[in-house]
């Protein structure tokens, strides 16, 4: 299995065992390690922007899509920084490299979502991406992704169960709050007012 599948795919399917193996290996750190997987994530998100908007990959949408969507790797950086401890943990560049392997559930989810927009007619795409179909799959991706990151904190940062769960919450609180504010802050106040019946 090690020979065929990428580390990202193995982390997605067997997070605990793979992170344990990768964490023990040590491996190099450095600038390239710090940026290679965040750059891949930006490239991937740029491709999704182009596919979902225009049903094709175009340089025009990919270039500006990469710039727009770069906020996602950046808020992930911020979330991880909030949980990383210089004295006890592996070098930050190595931590980033391993942490960014955990996006498998979102990559698979977005590939499926983009496939609908790329190949279904627009009216069918709106039908199949309606909240009643999308939300259950979205929740599965959230839970799957959280379980992988929990394993990251357990096996790479060697934290206890409670501390790993806490770090996961901190990482999500920082990165998701920043991400939602950048992507869609404006309707939040009225929507919260509606939900909370204020």
């Amino acid at each position, binding site marked *: 299995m090690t020979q*065929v*599948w*990428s*580390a*990202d*795919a193995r982390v997605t399917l067997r997070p605990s065992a793979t992170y344990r193996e990768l964490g023990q290996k040590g491996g190099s750190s450095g600038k390239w390690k710090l940026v*290679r*997987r965040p750059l*891949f994530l930006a490239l*991937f998100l740029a*491709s999704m*922007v*182009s*596919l*979902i*908007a*225009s*049903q*094709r*990959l*175009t*340089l*025009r*949408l*990919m270039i*500006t*899509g990469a*710039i*727009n*969507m770069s*906020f996602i790797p950046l808020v992930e950086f911020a979330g991880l920084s909030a949980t990383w401890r210089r004295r006890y943990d592996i070098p930050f560049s190595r931590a980033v490299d391993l942490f960014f392997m955990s996006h*498998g559930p979102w*990559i*698979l989810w977005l*590939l499926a979502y*983009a*496939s609908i*927009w*790329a*190949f279904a*007619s*627009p*009216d*069918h*795409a*709106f*039908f199949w*991406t*309606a909240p009643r179909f999308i939300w259950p799959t979205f929740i599965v991706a959230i839970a799957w992704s959280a379980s992988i990151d929990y394993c990251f904190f357990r096996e790479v940062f060697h934290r206890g169960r409670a501390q790993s769960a806490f770090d996961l919450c901190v990482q999500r609180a920082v990165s998701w709050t920043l991400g939602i504010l*950048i*992507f*869609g*802050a*404006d*309707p939040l*106040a*009225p*929507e919260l*007012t*509606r939900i909370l019946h204020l």
Partner: protein
Amino acid sequence: MSLGRLISLVSLLVAISLGTLSDVPHTHAPISLDSYRVLTADFHVHSFPLSWGTLAPWDTVLEARHDGLDVIAMTPHNHVWVAYIGRWFSERIGGPTVLIGEEVVTPRYHLLAIGIHDEIGWRQSAAGAINEVHRQGGVAIAAHPRKFYWPAYDAAALSKLDGAEIQHPLIYATTRGYSEVQQFFDRAQLAAIGDSDYHGTGPMGICRTFIFAHDNSEGAILDAIRTHHTVAIDRDGRAYGDPALIALMRNVDLAQLNPSFVNPEWMTRASAACGLLGLLALFLFGEI
């Protein structure tokens, strides 16, 4: 280089080449019917950032042109400054016409304020917000008026409202949604509006409004909405709006005016297939 990485890189190169080559705008010649110029418009368009849109304001304008729209209103949630960026860019590339707008998102209703210049506050009644839109010289359109928004549109608000979305992507997601926006439209004399509520998913203008104006200036477009000189047509050819204008459109080739439902050419399909294959291969076998 591993076989997986090679496959993914070749697939992505092919995908980007085919996609970029096929990225040609859908254009149509200006259409005149009777004494009117018929314009294709989408009055409900969101951009990055802050409004759950994925495309930058300039890409949004380019995408509008690509999808054959003559007019768009950029309607960020509860602000207008992103719309000014879009209009600035559009003026430099020669169109489409970009109207400054806002989707006024409140706990009780969503309202499109089109042709305004300042932000409309969201902590007021629908009638109050519509008054403010009119004071700024704009028009007010009920956005996706599902049943749970109806109580906000009391008699005072309905009497002042200029238009309502009768065509919106939600009609393809739920039959109940289609029925509800139709019932709302029947409650008052309103301009028929088709909008895509664009957030970067699918083609812009999948639902669009045909504006019967005297020219493509902002004033002429807003006047056409005020006087209900609009038509919205769904995928199956059902038309809403002024019957006389619908009759005028009988001989118009709708596929030319709304290319959203025209099957993509092979290069677009191949670009998507190679792109998805390349990205999946890179994730599974790429060892990034």
